[in-house]
């Protein structure tokens, strides 16, 4: 098999490629970048959810039983039929509560439990298609097997005392296998994700930043001298898309010393004498004209990844 051409010919080199970056092709055929949720964040989200679940269960029970006491209903084992029925309903709801919690939130419009929302995580279909209800049900049901069962197993073994060592170790091994499952695959999938065809990704949002190429400096006008910065073809041909992105980052961060450094580097490269104190205007002008130059090339099918290409 022939080796694929080096991707650096098309894609600008990144300083440190993020190992959690993934591309998913949407049903429209457009690749979207996703970031796999960090394992630590997911563990924290789970812990947060468990705390909230226990707190909600305790709160609901307290409310229900103070209500029962208020209307003088004997809601306990020795009570009458109504009292026992209330307890039965309560037991069933508590038994199913953790399932209800996860399904209600993950199938709702927000698409994430409070714990996941707090940590900026979301569940998505790995193939880029629709996240089906069945997939959400499957991944949440398997949590019981990964987490709840071994915990119950170990705790009953501890309570019963006899044969505790064997059962305890078996339960612990079970728990550990599933708990460390996400560490043994690239996409940090837990067993439920494997079965459901899902993964957990970051769901960050950012605002549209103003275009740098439409400001006053972008027109090429110096703030100090009313001069216009005009760069020739040769002076713009030095850099590629990667350098343009670095320049964009420097301009957006807007740190004085970084801009001075970059302006000096560019000036040295194109053989200009830099004027002190006007770096931002100089850089904005160079950014805009370099972008115009490179985008013109793109329209003719010529891309320049970086200064080496």
């Amino acid at each position, binding site marked *: 098999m022939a080796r694929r051409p080096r991707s650096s010919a098309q894609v600008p080199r990144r300083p440190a490629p993020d190992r959690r970056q993934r591309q998913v092709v*949407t*049903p*429209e055929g*457009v690749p*979207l*970048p996703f970031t796999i949720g960090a394992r630590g964040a997911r563990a924290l989200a789970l812990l947060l959810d468990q705390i909230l679940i226990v707190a909600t269960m305790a709160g609901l029970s307290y409310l229900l039983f103070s209500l029962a006491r208020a209307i003088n209903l004997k809601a306990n*084992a020795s009570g009458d039929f109504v009292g*026992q029925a209330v307890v*039965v309903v309560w*037991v069933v709801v508590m038994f*199913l509560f953790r*399932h*209800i919690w996860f*399904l*209600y939130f*993950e*199938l*709702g*419009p*927000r*698409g994430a439990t409070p714990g996941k929302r707090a940590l900026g995580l*979301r569940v*998505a279909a790995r193939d*880029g298609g*629709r*996240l*089906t*209800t*069945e997939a959400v*049900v*499957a991944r949440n*049901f*398997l949590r019981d097997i990964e987490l709840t*069962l071994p915990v*119950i197993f170990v705790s*009953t073994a501890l309570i019963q005392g006899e044969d505790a060592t064997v059962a305890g170790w078996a339960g612990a091994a079970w728990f550990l296998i599933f708990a460390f499952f996400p560490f043994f695959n690239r996409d940090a999938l837990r067993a439920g994700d*494997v*079965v*459901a*065809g899902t993964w957990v990704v970051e*769901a960050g*949002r*950012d605002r*549209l930043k103003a*275009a*740098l*190429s*439409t400001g006053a400096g972008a*027109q090429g006008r110096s703030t100090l001298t009313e001069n216009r910065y005009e760069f020739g073809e040769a002076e713009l041909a030095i850099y590629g898309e990667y350098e*343009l*992105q670095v320049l*964009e*980052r420097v301009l*957006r961060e807007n740190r004085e010393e970084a801009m001075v450094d970059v302006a000096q580097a560019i000036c040295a490269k194109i053989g200009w004498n830099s004027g002190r104190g006007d770096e931002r205007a100089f850089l904005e002008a160079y950014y*805009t004209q370099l*972008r*115009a130059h*490179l*985008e013109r090339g793109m*329209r003719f099918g010529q891309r320049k990844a970086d200064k080496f290409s």
Partner: protein
Amino acid sequence: MIARWFGKNAGQDAAVEAAALRSDRFRQAREGDWQRLDAIVTRIEGGRLRKLSDDDLLALPALYRTVVSSLAIARETSLDQALISYLEGLARRAWFAVYGPREGLGAWLARFFRGGWSAAVRGLGRDLLIALAVMVLGTVVGWLLVSSNPDWFYSLMGGMGDDVRVPGATREALRHTLFGQQDQNGLSMFAAFLFSNNAQVSLFAFALGFAFGVPSVLLLIHNTAGLGALLWLYHGQGLTLDLIGWLAIHGTTELFAILLAGAAGIHIGRAMAFPGDLPVLTAAAVAGRRAAQVMVGVVLMLVLAALLEGFGRQLIDSTTTRLAIGGTMLALWNAYFFAYRPARARVSN
């Protein structure tokens, strides 16, 4: 379209004129649509779905496609990194909204009870028969083992200290475990059943399916072997039918649940061992999603079995009535799973 770009937004036109770069003009012409989608998605993310107007909800898919195509164009024509990453983020957020789960918990449950559950059970196909065969085999093996050597009873049933149900027990002692326990507290029985290891067995049977189904089969055999041993014990004192009645009232539901769980586990195991044309992970995922649906039903069946055991068995003290209730439950489950096929029900894997 053209009227919208050139007529209404006079101020925007001026900005478009002023922009030096073609890619900036592209951005300014479409920014309105992006901001609208941004606002809609932000409201959805905030859980304020009700406050969304019908217009906005209808516009969502179209706006999403606009943004996706804007992104595709921007990647080919623009080097504004901030713009591209914004569009990527916006397209991703809109993708979550457009391709997220279509129905909430309530709607799914309604579909689940109206055909989805029984379709998933039928989808297990011959794994149901395998599980049934294994359970029958386990019972027979249990019986044969204990009848050949009564010592097996202790290893099959576990050594519970003060249980009177041991080989050599008198007929009266055994009879007493089946009848006349109305004074027992149904509620604690119910709770004990629900949170007992017995109910967890079915969950284990399912969970163990991931090891190619082998542990599921072993677990089914082990548990039904106990049943066989119990049958042998009561048979020896001529109480077979009474024991069956005592078991059947909740057992038809409970054993059916265990059968389904075992079948679900075997289903996953078989899909992984013999994935056919699919990649192993895909095969496991298809089988797993179907099995998980079945298991949601199993949990509900176990709750019902707990109610029947906790209350039904204490209140009803006659073998005939117990058998009638157990048989009815069995018939109902069979009818629901295999005869109930509403035309509307669609099951997706």
